[in-house]
């Protein structure tokens, strides 16, 4: 009895030590975001880098289409290389930074994060469907959780606060109906 209790406590402690304190991480992330504004005059982002990849494909298929659409032309009009973008290099850094952190914490492994009541296959199907919606919404709102919520939030951009609040509304309102996915 005593051993099982202490073992449980040990397991719990391990779980708590798995990730750093959210407040310390928050301050650190805030300072990274602030440095980005001080150095580059812009905040962090993610979905914009995927836009570069999309435009690169569109460019390969039809240069005319890219040139005739102002939004696409911003990324790859004429001779412009869609990958020569600040966000593309920032995202490459994100991959490296995540890998470094995962290596330090011994977390590098292949896994499927899901609730106990669904299969891995179901989880992957919902991941693809959700990713499709998220990608579509991110382009409509001109930014994702990084570009709008984090960066727009810190720079007090009104439109970004609207997007952030709507993200919470969307996720919280659907959460109950899809609870089997996670809990």
């Amino acid at each position: 009895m005593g051993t099982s209790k202490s073992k449980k406590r040990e397991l719990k402690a391990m779980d708590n030590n798995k990730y750093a304190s959210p407040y310390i991480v928050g301050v650190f992330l805030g300072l990274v975001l602030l440095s980005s504004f001080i150095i580059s005059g812009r905040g962090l982002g993610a979905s914009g880098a995927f836009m570069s990849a999309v435009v690169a494909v569109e460019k390969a298929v039809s240069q005319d289409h890219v040139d005739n659409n102002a939004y696409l032309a911003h990324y790859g009009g004429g001779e412009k290389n869609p990958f020569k973008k600040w966000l593309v290099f920032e995202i490459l850094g994100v991959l490296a930074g995540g890998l470094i952190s995962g290596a330090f914490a011994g977390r590098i492994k292949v896994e499927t994060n899901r609730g106990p009541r669904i299969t891995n296959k179901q989880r992957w199907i919902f991941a693809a469907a959700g990713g499709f919606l998220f990608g579509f919404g991110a382009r409509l709102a001109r930014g994702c959780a990084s570009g709008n919520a984090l960066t727009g939030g810190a720079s007090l951009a009104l439109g970004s606060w609207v997007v952030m609040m709507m993200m919470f509304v969307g996720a919280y309102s659907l959460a109950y109906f899809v609870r089997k996915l996670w809990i």
Partner: protein
Amino acid sequence: MFAPIAVISEWGNGINFLLAFLIGIGFGFAVERGGMGNARKLAMQFYFRDMSVFKIMFTAIITAMFGIILLSSIGWLNVDVMLINPTYLWAGLAGGLIMGFGFILSGY
């Protein structure tokens, strides 16, 4: 007034992209360290079982916001040349809602 440094000094692509990569490393390290690499942990905030994403996000927003306000009030940071997201109200309302649906389905 010396910041944003790269904008005021008109630095070229090479150095800007290198700095973007380094800033990205900080960003990636922070979110992984905080557990935002785990979809289930992220989703748990919507069931009020693990609010660390909330805590990380709003601590980061407040930290950066204070820094921006402080540095611009003492005249070091020129917010006029900073890239600040423009407002597209209806697109933002719809896009945010759709992203929220996508978030709870995909976990990210």
